[in-house]
Each structure stands twice: as structure tokens, then as C-alpha cells.
């Protein structure tokens, strides 16, 4: 297997902040892995993600994308090879659903028939009937449906790496579980690399082949869900697992 993403001693500190948002992080992600990044707000997980598509650039250290240092790449062109989904979805309200999904294919000047076919294919993939949704506008969709479109838009040019920043954070519990299942299906069929940021431990353990637990800008543990539960690396990870267990006990009562 090839290495998709490698962080080499990466630091990122924001102006006016006393500590680093990401503090000397080194890690390796193989192509085809589904990595979830787990941590509470302010732990640096989103910063870590945004350094991969160069929305932020590291202060120190380097990041390699399939063996190439990303700091040498033109950020705009580079980002087109990476799918990006955010919690607020960020659909373009003045464009139809088809127009939204076709954003990157249009920039890459795909022929019209190819774009049309791809839009239909993607809508089916995310569980929405193309003829019904293609010509609607984002405001006519529910939150869950909007995020499905966000996902379809990110998948449009079949990127090798998908970055998802708490994509289901604002979606109700039932829809969230459906979306998680469908995302797993899409991932399994695609064999691409997925990085998924969440603060929900159940979501992180359900989706990830490996879970990256972060706190205060540092990696606390990076391992399979099984290994993390079996041998938590430190007190922080232990308390995180206990908090989730406490939740389950409460549900059983």
C-alpha cells in the first residue's frame, strides 16, 4: 500500500495565541484508510485537517501528499484533487443542486454530457432521485439532504482523498446514523482515503479504521478502535472512553 498523507513534525500556531493549535505532530496515513480524528473543540483537529488542503499552512515541519511536499504545489489546483465537506455544508444558494455538484467538473472543463451523467450518478450514490432534485435550489432541501449534496459535490471528480470536517455535526440523530452508514458504503466501494473530524466518540469509533485522538494540539493515541479500548495510552484517552461508557449505561437503565 502507498502512503497517502504524511505529517513530519508539523506545528501550527495562530497569531495572538499563546500555544500551538497543532503541536509537533507526525503521522502516516496509508491510501485507502478511513481515519477519524477525535477531540473536543479547540484541540486542533480541524486545524490539522485544513493543513492538508492548504487552507492553513504549517509553521514548522512538512506535509507530504502521495510522497510530494504540498508546500510546493499551487494551492488552488491542488485542492481540486481533494474532496472537502464542512459542517455548515456551504452550498451555493444561487445555483441549482446540479450546478452545485458540477462546480469542480466545470472548472476542469469537463464536456457537458460527462458532467450531466456524473451529476446523476452522484445523486443516486447519495440516495437522492436525480430527476426530483437536480433542478431544485439548496434552500428547498432539508439539512440532511443538503449535506448529502455537500458530499456529492466533494466526490464529483472522484478525489483520492476526502476531508470531512464534522459533516454530520448539525444533523439529527436518526439521519446522522443513516448518513454514517451510507458514507461507509461509499467509502468501501471507493477504496479512497478518508479523513473525518468529529467530537462524537461513537461516530469516531464506528467509522474509523483507525482513530486519531487529539488534545491540546498533540496526538494522544492513534490506533484501531479495538486497540484503543483494550489499552488506552493515557489518562485522557481513558477518561474519554469512560465518558462514552457512562453514556451507554445511562441508556440501558
Amino acid at each position, binding site marked *: 500500500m502507498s502512503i497517502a498523507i504524511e505529517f513530519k513534525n508539523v506545528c501550527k500556531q495562530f497569531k495572538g495565541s499563546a500555544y500551538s493549535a497543532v503541536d509537533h505532530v507526525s503521522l502516516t496515513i496509508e491510501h485507502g484508510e478511513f481515519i477519524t480524528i477525535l477531540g473536543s473543540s479547540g484541540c486542533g483537529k480541524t486545524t490539522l485537517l485544513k493543513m492538508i*488542503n492548504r*487552507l492553513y499552512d504549517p509553521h514548522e515541519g512538512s506535509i507530504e501528499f502521495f510522497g510530494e511536499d504540498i508546500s510546493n504545489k499551487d494551492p*488552488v*489546483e*491542488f*485542492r*481540486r*484533487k*481533494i474532496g*472537502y465537506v*464542512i459542517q*455548515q*455544508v*456551504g*452550498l*451555493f*444558494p*444561487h445555483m441549482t443542486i446540479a450546478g452545485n455538484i458540477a*462546480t*469542480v467538473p466545470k*472548472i476542469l472543463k469537463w464536456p457537458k454530457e460527462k458532467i450531466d451523467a456524473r451529476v446523476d450518478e452522484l445523486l443516486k450514490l447519495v440516495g437522492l432521485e436525480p430527476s426530483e432534485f437536480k433542478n431544485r435550489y439548496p434552500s428547498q432541501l432539508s439539512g440532511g439532504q443538503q449535506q448529502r449534496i*455537500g458530499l456529492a*459535490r*466533494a466526490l464529483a471528480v472522484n478525489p483520492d482523498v476526502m*476531508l470531512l470536517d464534522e459533516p454530520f455535526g448539525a444533523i439529527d440523530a436518526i439521519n446522522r446514523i443513516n448518513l454514517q452508514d451510507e458514507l461507509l458504503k461509499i467509502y468501501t466501494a471507493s477504496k479512497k482515503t478518508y479523513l473525518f473530524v468529529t467530537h462524537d466518540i461513537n461516530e469516531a469509533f464506528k467509522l474509523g479504521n483507525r482513530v486519531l485522538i487529539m488534545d491540546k494540539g498533540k496526538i494522544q493515541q492513534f490506533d484501531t478502535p479495538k486497540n484503543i479500548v483494550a489499552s488506552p495510552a493515557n489518562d485522557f484517552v481513558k477518561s474519554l472512553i469512560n465518558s462514552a461508557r457512562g453514556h451507554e449505561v445511562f441508556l440501558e437503565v
Partner: protein
Amino acid sequence: MIDYLLRYPDKLLKAFMGHIEIVLITLVVSILFAAMLTILAAYSKIVSKILVNIFAMIYSIPSLALFAMLVPLTGLGKDTAIIVLVLYNQYLLLRNTIDGLNNVEPSIIEAATGMGMSKSQILFQVKLPLATKPIFAGIHLAVVSTIGIATIAASINAGGIGSILLDGLRTVNTAKILWGTLMSAGLAIVVNGILNVVEKKIT
């Protein structure tokens, strides 16, 4: 009053058409100029702040004073009037346009950037279409204010409805004063009404 209209219809028409001419030329030049400045401002926050501040300062100068200031440089007449009106409009147009562009939902811009849209693609395909409402509001304001301030341009011999009004005031001719007032106020009210309808339709 009707008497005056019957006796000098050509005089009134000429003044009215002269006014429309000044307003239209001003508008076209203003929008083109503002579009250029907006693109400049879209690429740099500092430039946009400097531009808005400069034009805010110019806007605060009373029109009669600004006309007087420019006469030694550009002479009497229509050209000077149009320069002044264009300068005034920049503040109205730029402020509304820049605010409109900056107020586009940040998550939409983040998604667009993350997908790999360039700065100009984001400006033209995302920000501008989402800012049509404030941009049009700026144009609306500029049109109405140009119609008003253009009457004062008669004081530097630029013609227009203001010339009837000033003549009337100088010779204490009530008919002229009334026609001047009616035409300038009427024009502003009618155009404002039309723009209100258009504004509702496009947004």
C-alpha cells in the same frame, strides 16, 4: 404657469433632456469606475478600506464647494459636473458593493476555497451573484442622489433642470421656480418608484 409651458416648451424640454443626459452619463461612468475599484478592493482588504475612506471624505464635502474647487482645474460646464457626480457616487456604490461582497456567508466562501476555486472564480461565480441585492441598492441610491445633486450643477453652467430653477430664483420668476422644482422632484420620485419595482423583481 401653464402659460409658461405653452410659451417655452422647448426651453423646458431642453433643460429636462440636458438633465437626463448628465444623469445617464454620470451613471454609466460611475458604475464602470466603481466596478474597476471593486475588483481592486476585492483582492486586498487594505485597499478596500483606503478607497472607502477616501470616497467617504469626498462625499462629506458639500456639492457647491466641490464644484467650486474643480472649476479652476476642469473649467465650467458639463464635464466638471459629471466628474463631481461620479466622485459622489463612488462612495454610495463602493460601500454597498464591498459590504455586500464581504457579507456573503463565510462557510460558502470556505467551501468554495476548499474545493479549489480561485479568488477570481469565487468573486465572479459566488460573491457577486450573492451580492446583487446590496449592489442594486447602491445603484438605486446613486441614481436618486445624482438626479438631486445635478440640479446644483447648473451653478457652474452645466445646464439641466437646475438652470430653470436658478434663472427663476435670480429673476424672481415664480413659474420658472415652480417648473424647476416640479421637474426635478417629479423626476426623482418617478425614477425612485421605477427602481423600487425593479429592485423587488430582481431580488
